[in-house]
């Protein structure tokens, strides 16, 4: 079967069958990246990076805590962006991407809070404190969960996408609040670990390990979000000829 040649535009990849085919190739690549980068990052984090002068060994939580917290904020912005695009241009695929980001974003937010609690106990003497950074991150978790609950509660998928988009866009005001909370308020949580304008505050090997782990989490997010979007495409386009053909071919291959 040959596809008619169409000019490559911004909307070329908004076609669900094309997206499905391309991500089918990309997902294994992102998995390989995620696993490989994690192996290198953890090896650096545990065997190359030195013991911290003030915190001892417990600081090694940073190699998952900071990447998870970064991803939680980044994914929210990406989710709100695609939700808005899906709403403004009536682009189904953009809305599906937004909705499949939500569970992964919620997961990273949970991990940031969980690892933060386990790090806070030995260093601050408490699992939790109602300081600006922690509270705004908890609100982020509720925004993700609220978005998932709202979109799942509405039966018509396009209406659900639109209602979700409104929530996602309004909620995005929380992201800069999380990021700048350590600057704007007096918080128990320490300031930004990495800054583009200031010299690094930690050993180079620690910083490198943390950045490699961030790339690993980023690759993980791509892999799992694309997998979920592919599932969503199949669910929504169930009656489309290309899905029917694909499904029957797969069934033929695996009786």
């Amino acid at each position, binding site marked *: 079967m040959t596809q008619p040649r169409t000019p490559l535009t911004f909307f070329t990849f908004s076609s669900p069958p094309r997206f499905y085919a391309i991500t089918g190739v990309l997902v294994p690549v992102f998995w390989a990246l995620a696993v490989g980068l994690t192996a290198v990052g953890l090896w650096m984090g*545990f*065997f190359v*990076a*030195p*013991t911290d002068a003030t915190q*001892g*060994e*417990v600081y*090694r*939580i940073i190699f*998952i*805590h900071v990447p*998870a917290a970064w991803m939680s904020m980044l994914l929210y912005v990406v989710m709100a962006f695609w939700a808005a695009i899906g709403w403004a241009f009536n682009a189904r695929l953009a809305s599906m991407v937004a909705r499949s980001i939500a*569970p*992964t974003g919620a*997961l990273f937010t*949970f*991990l940031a809070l*969980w*690892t933060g609690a*386990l*790090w806070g*106990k*030995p260093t601050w003497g408490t699992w939790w404190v109602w300081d600006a950074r922690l509270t705004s991150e908890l609100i982020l978790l509720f925004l993700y969960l609220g978005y998932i609950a709202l979109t799942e509660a509405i039966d018509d998928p396009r209406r659900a996408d639109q209602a979700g988009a409104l929530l996602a866009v309004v909620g995005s005001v929380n992201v800069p609040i999380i990021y700048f909370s350590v600057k704007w308020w007096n918080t128990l949580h320490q300031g930004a670990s990495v800054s583009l304008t200031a010299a690094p505050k930690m050993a180079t090997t620690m910083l490198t390990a943390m950045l490699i782990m961030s790339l690993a989490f980023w690759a*993980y997010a791509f*892999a*799992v979000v694309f*997998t*979920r979007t*592919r*599932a*969503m495409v*199949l*669910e929504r386009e*169930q*009656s*489309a*000829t290309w*899905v*029917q053909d*694909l*499904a*029957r071919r*797969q*069934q033929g291959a695996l009786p």
Partner: protein
Amino acid sequence: MNWNSASEFFDMGGHGFFVWGSYAVCLAVMTLEPLLAAQRRRRALQQAAQTPHGAAAARDEEDA
């Protein structure tokens, strides 16, 4: 090298519970989520295979 023995590595300077508690939960959820997503895709494909061709055409007309 930071560690002289395996037990020293697992002890994490007396904070093993906090360090490994973080990493274990991280590993658990980041293993579970991809499995669930992959399962959802397989299920969607199976369901599509069971959708009759006629039903698809009828639904498309309804939408139009």
